[in-house]
């Protein structure tokens, strides 16, 4: 507790006055974290609105509301907005808020660059979204931007490529900052194997980001030059190969899905022990499992390309390598379950979302194993089964973890408890509707409905209707979340510094709301406050 009081005489503790100084010129990790989270929420609703238009069109067969080309623009930008605009910035926001507090650091290692990482993002997305209003509209070749289709895009190609370059610059700087912070800014006594798992998963995620965002930048640069400068990277007539693009893209793309999910694993590994009132089962195994997943993510990319035509040896290698990932992921799932086993569990909102994560993410994991089997994938490829799979992983996985994290840490951020009753409404509405939304899509896919299509054969009607109804309930339920967060920020029951009885970690040793500047240098670390490393 002693370090909670040391900053009281800190004259820097006042927040800068005025909007520009507070938000535009900020170097404070908490304010930048807030900016990231708000930006992510806005993008979540923009991307979500696109998804709802898609589901509206798919409510019935035939074309009712949008033209096919606009439909393709929506599927493309929905994915880009959700991946690069919502999920990634949300996790970076959580990292900004929590990592310095969790490791006892005064701030992020490179605070000015931290500001820049954030303030590139709104511009990048303004550029990307502006393509909707251009001649020829937004990119429509899917978020994977495969040539030759993407090269047939009109004026949006250059805007799309440059927007992705900007997002890449932002991500790389954010990742560098996180690595430098974790490696260099830990308080004395915060050894590597005492770090919270959220810090561990983010450290590994940051490494993935620096390794693969330049690869994506290279891939889209080749699209740019093929489109505007007459190069032949993806043109067979010139000796290139469109399949080359797929290799490069998925060399980025597969690690990217772990960039989206590893921080979620970290969040869940913080929440479950807190509400099971037991230390995380197999802490070190969790760390090694995370590292193994990250390593494996670099050697499985071609499982996205089974149907594209590959030598048999390639199909087999990528199939087995992919299935290998089930092992470290299984370690994680079993560890979470073992943590809950015989725990004195309570079911506040963060725990509910975390448990839903464990169950529903596992469903997404299982459908992933089905897709990893090359001969089976020949059937599933590019069907709604794939859509169901990655939405289980990314919505009931990554997004659920983000929502769980917000409920878990919101009292620490705002100093107020959220409305538990309303939060339970939000949870149950979401968890039911999200399954109504995505579960039928498995059946649609198995029955052969292709993805990225505005119209469909009549045998798919019922499941599409059910799915669309789920989508609207799920989408509008999230307004409840916005209201809840807004209400908690405005006021409510005062939160104690510990907030949750079973919660461990340095962030719970400081008052709620956390002071603008939490720790001075060399904050003393008391092992009893930590979740890990004090037992032996």
């Amino acid at each position, binding site marked *: 507790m002693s370090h909670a009081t040391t900053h009281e005489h800190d004259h820097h503790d006042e927040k800068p006055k005025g909007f520009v100084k507070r938000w535009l010129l900020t170097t404070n990790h908490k304010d930048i974290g807030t900016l990231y989270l708000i930006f992510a929420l806005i993008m979540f609703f923009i991307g979500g609105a696109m998804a709802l238009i898609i589901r509206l069109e798919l409510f019935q067969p035939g074309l009712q509301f949008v033209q096919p080309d606009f439909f393709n623009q929506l599927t493309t930008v929905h994915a880009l907005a959700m991946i690069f605009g919502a999920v990634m910035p949300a996790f970076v926001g959580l990292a900004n808020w929590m990592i310095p507090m969790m490791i006892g650091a005064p701030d992020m290692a490179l605070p000015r*660059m931290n500001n820049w990482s954030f*303030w590139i993002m709104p511009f990048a997305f303004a550029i990307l979204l502006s393509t909707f209003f251009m001649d020829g509209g937004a990119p429509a070749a899917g978020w994977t931007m495969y040539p030759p289709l993407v090269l047939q895009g009109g004026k949006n190609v250059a805007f799309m490529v440059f927007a992705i370059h900007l997002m890449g610059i932002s991500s790389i700087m954010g990742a560098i900052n996180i690595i430098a912070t974790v490696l260099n800014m830990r308080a004395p006594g915060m050894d590597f194997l005492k770090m919270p798992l959220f810090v561990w998963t983010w450290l590994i995620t940051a490494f993935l980001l620096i390794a693969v965002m330049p690869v994506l930048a290279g891939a889209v640069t080749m699209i740019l030059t093929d489109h505007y400068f007459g190069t032949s990277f993806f043109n067979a007539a*010139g000796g290139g190969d469109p399949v080359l693009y797929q290799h490069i893209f998925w060399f980025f793309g597969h690690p990217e899905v772990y960039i989206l999910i590893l921080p979620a694993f970290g969040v869940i590994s913080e929440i479950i022990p807190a509400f099971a009132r037991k230390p995380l089962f197999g802490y070190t195994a969790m760390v090694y499992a995370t590292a193994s997943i990250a390593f494996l993510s670099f050697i499985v990319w071609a499982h996205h390309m089974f149907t594209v035509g590959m030598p048999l040896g390639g199909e087999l290698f990528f199939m087995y390598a992919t299935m290998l990932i089930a092992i470290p992921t299984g370690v994680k799932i079993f560890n979470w379950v073992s943590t809950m086993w015989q725990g004195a569990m309570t079911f506040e909102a963060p725990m509910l979302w975390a448990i839903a994560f464990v169950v529903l993410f596992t469903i997404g994991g299982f459908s992933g194993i089905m897709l990893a089997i090359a001969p089976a994938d020949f059937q599933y490829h590019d069907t709604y089964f794939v859509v169901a799979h990655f939405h289980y992983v990314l919505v009931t996985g990554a997004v659920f973890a983000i929502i769980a994290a917000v409920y878990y840490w919101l009292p620490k951020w705002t100093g107020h408890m959220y409305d538990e009753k309303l939060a339970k409404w939000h949870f149950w509405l979401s968890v039911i509707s999200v399954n109504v939304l995505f579960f039928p899509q498995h059946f649609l896919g198995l029955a052969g409905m292709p993805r990225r299509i505005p119209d469909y054969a009549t045998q798919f009607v019922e499941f599409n209707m059910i799915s669309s109804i789920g989508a609207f309930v799920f989408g509008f339920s999230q307004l409840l979340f916005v209201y809840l967060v807004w209400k908690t920020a405005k006021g409510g029951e005062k939160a104690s510094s510990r907030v949750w009885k079973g919660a461990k970690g340095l962030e719970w040793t400081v008052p709620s709301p956390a002071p603008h500047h939490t720790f001075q*240098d060399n904050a003393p670390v008391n092992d009893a406050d930590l979740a890990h490393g004090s037992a032996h």
Partner: protein
Amino acid sequence: MSQATESTYYVPHLAKWPIVGSVGLTLAAVGGALYLNGDTGPWLLYAGLAVIVYMMFGWFGEVIAESEGGMYNQRVDTSFRMGMIWFIFSEVMFFAVFFGALFYARMFSVPWLGGEGTGYATGALLWQGYEGVWPTNGPANLGGEFETIPAFGLPLINTLILLTSGLTVTLAHHALKKSNRRALVGWLLATVVLGFTFVYLQATEYIEAYHELNLTLGSGIYGSTFFMLTGFHGLHVTLGAIMLLVIAIRAMRGHFTPEHHFAFEAVAWYWHFVDVVWLALFIFVYIL
């Protein structure tokens, strides 16, 4: 106060340069896209680049002033070092993509188009008669017949220039550690001259390629990989040489001590990185 700076991590407040940088990047991106689409001239792109240059002057100036003012302790120095190392790693991955494209074309796509291995049907049905031998502009002979640049002419000279520049920058580092400022500035300027000489020779090579060898960006996959790899490398050499020049000017102004000279080392690392990339280029693009 001096005692405080030794023990506390310097956290800057009210950073105005990042937002300037974002505006610059956005102007450059939008301007570049408009220009590529033929909607406007390049003026907005140039304006954006100018803002970025202005931002760099301002931002680095601020950091240099803080550093010279003794506000950075050892830990801040470590953060900067980590930042530079991981930035260079991201650059390595960027170049790896283009090398990957080169290897893929040479090992897979070009032989397949020529009917090798599983590409038998491709070769026979689509591109009959195409042999798939490197260097190639593809079965459609894109851009017309071309010649390649022999490795053991200008490229070899450029290799020697860059290797020498790696040596001179190391000599500069030794001079800095011995507080020999004259030698430091001398070796740095020698490195800068070598760097710009390299860029000049690359430019003449490009002119020769375009005008005499008919080797252009449009010369199929050979032209694509050749110009993108050497082009991005040349861009990095140019930036590195400018960075070295800035370091040389700072050294003349009395910056850096034998103990504290992160900026010097960062630029030296960058220079060695550019050097190593060139060696890979020389082997895989020119010789093999």
